[in-house]
């Protein structure tokens, strides 16, 4: 969305809201693990933005974080989220399918397939990179131990897995080779936490493993933590995956609470320059090209496969790789 269009929309909403009476809003954003810091900052900014147009409104935004699948399940089971901002489209698909609280075509309602920011999967290694890890191939070298969460429970881990698969496919040339590669890779994994954040803690605080497969934003965050820069460094592999964490309004819940307008605005504002800058500051890759240009040094360029082009979307990838009996189960039961 261009800035001008955005400004028009904001103006329109200001005019509309100006005539309305003051309201109290309580908005619930159900999100996944690594976005805590992002939304903490964004919420404050959004409230300011909303109150500029509707000075007499009171807005309170509540946050809930956890593994992406677990959070989606909570929404399906009745957690009254006005908006969901999850790790992958597959999880929101399930909310639409099982919870029936938003239409199945939700992803077409916002620009860029409803993903205002993206990320990718990189390696976090210990300072000085003692094991000399440069690319995916190095991960299966002897005595390298790899930390990643469990793809069954963690959205981030699914991106990790697919990125590894893409590498295996490219290096080996066949699916059989790719499966061999990921199987070998998971032999090097000593701990499978249930969520992306759990894995980071295991790697950073408990000193496990030589390399952490992580969301790029999560890796940057680990560097930012006190002393992180002296302890870790980021390694960018030759090939990775474009991780697209989508956002959506949960229509039924928002309607029930009278939050449709503000929920929609909440997500739209993510696409604004302000929202995009906050995303970039929290190490998410912004969609807006102008904002992206300002952060070009922060995000290295690398080859990225995508879920839709290379894996046929989550509707194909999820059952093939992660459901019971899928590739992930096969590599573990064959051990």
């Amino acid at each position, binding site marked *: 969305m261009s800035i001008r269009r955005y400004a028009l929309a904001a103006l329109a909403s200001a005019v509309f809201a100006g005539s309305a009476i003051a309201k109290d809003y309580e908005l619930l954003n159900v999100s996944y693990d690594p976005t805590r810091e992002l939304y903490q900052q964004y919420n404050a900014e959004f409230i300011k933005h909303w109150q500029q147009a509707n000075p007499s409104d009171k807005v309170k935004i509540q946050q809930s974080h956890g593994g992406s*699948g677990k959070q989606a*399940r909570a929404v399906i089971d009745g957690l009254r989220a006005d908006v969901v901002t999850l790790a992958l489209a597959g999880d929101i698909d399930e909310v639409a399918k099982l919870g029936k609280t938003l239409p199945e075509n939700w992803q077409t309602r916002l620009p860029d397939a409803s993903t205002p920011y993206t990320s990718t999967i990189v390696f976090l290694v210990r300072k000085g990179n003692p094991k000399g890890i440069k690319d995916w191939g190095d991960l299966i070298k002897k005595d390298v131990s790899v930390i990643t969460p469990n793809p*069954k429970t963690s959205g981030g881990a699914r991106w990790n897995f697919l990125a590894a698969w893409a590498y295996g496919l490219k290096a080996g040339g066949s699916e059989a080779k790719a499966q061999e590669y990921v199987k070998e890779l998971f032999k090097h994994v000593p701990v*499978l*936490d*249930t969520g992306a954040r759990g894995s980071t803690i295991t790697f950073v605080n408990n000193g496990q493993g030589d390399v952490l497969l992580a969301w790029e934003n999560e890796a940057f965050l680990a560097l930012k933590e006190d002393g992180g820069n002296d302890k870790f460094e980021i390694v960018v592999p030759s090939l990775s995956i474009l991780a697209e964490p989508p956002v959506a309004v949960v229509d039924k819940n928002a309607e029930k609470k009278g939050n449709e307008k503000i929920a929609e605005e909440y997500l739209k504002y993510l696409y604004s320059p302000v929202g995009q800058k906050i995303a970039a500051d929290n190490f998410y890759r912004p969609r807006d090209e102008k904002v992206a240009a300002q952060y070009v040094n922060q995000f290295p360029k690398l080859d990225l496969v995508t879920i839709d082009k290379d894996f046929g979307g989550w509707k194909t990838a999820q059952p093939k790789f992660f459901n*019971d009996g899928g590739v992930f189960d096969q590599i573990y039961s064959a051990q």
Partner: protein
Amino acid sequence: MSRRISPVIPGFGLTLGYTLVYLSLIVLIPLGAMFVHASQLTWEQFWNIVSAPRVLAALKLSFGTAFLAAIINGLIGTLLAWVLVRYTFPGRKIIDAMIDLPFALPTAVAGIALTALYAPSGWVGQFATDLGFKIAYTPLGITLALTFVTLPFVVRTVQPVLADIPREVEEAAACLGAKPLQVFRHVLMPALLPAWLTGFALAFARGVGEYGSVIFIAGNMPMKTEILPLLIMVKLDQYDYTGATAIGVLMLVVSFILLLLINLLQRRIETP
């Protein structure tokens, strides 16, 4: 003391009724809901779920580590109970008061504390690393966490019974020439056994189901360090409600049979 049928004391209908209604509302109907949910499966489907290699591995791990932890507790719990009942020494009161700490401490706190302790970089874990083995992220770590969480059970069931055995009985046996071990085997063991069994069973049953303290330290590797409750969570996160309830039903049936057996066994020992 007599425990006889007493038509004089009122309130049988009231208390039994209330007990049953409350139990039904809070425990039985919700658990029943799980059975109903699982009953959407045919026997064959149910069997396929619970006999999947990953479930069997988790089953073995959960029951194995819980059993081991209960055994450890059976030993150190008896020892602690003995020391607390029979001796007075500095700090006895403190130890006695703090035995219940694992009950009172949130399991999540126990989990992160034990992980901080036993992780390879932790206070205790680093010694293990020097010796060439790992505690956290192995079944050993799980066993330790379960031992911590279930520590009070054996101590607290054995302690009062031990206190009720007059010292003179042992002394008399000793006077009659019995060696300490013989005293233990022939005098103390029979008296302590029912309580010990109760403590053991409660510790075991609790250990099988424990979640909060274990997931931090377990490592959660499928086939290796993945416990049953985690597997239920994993199934839930995949929207596989029936799979989750199937494992839930399995765990529940096993725990119920176990507790029932222990209760019956205890009665048999108490009333020979």
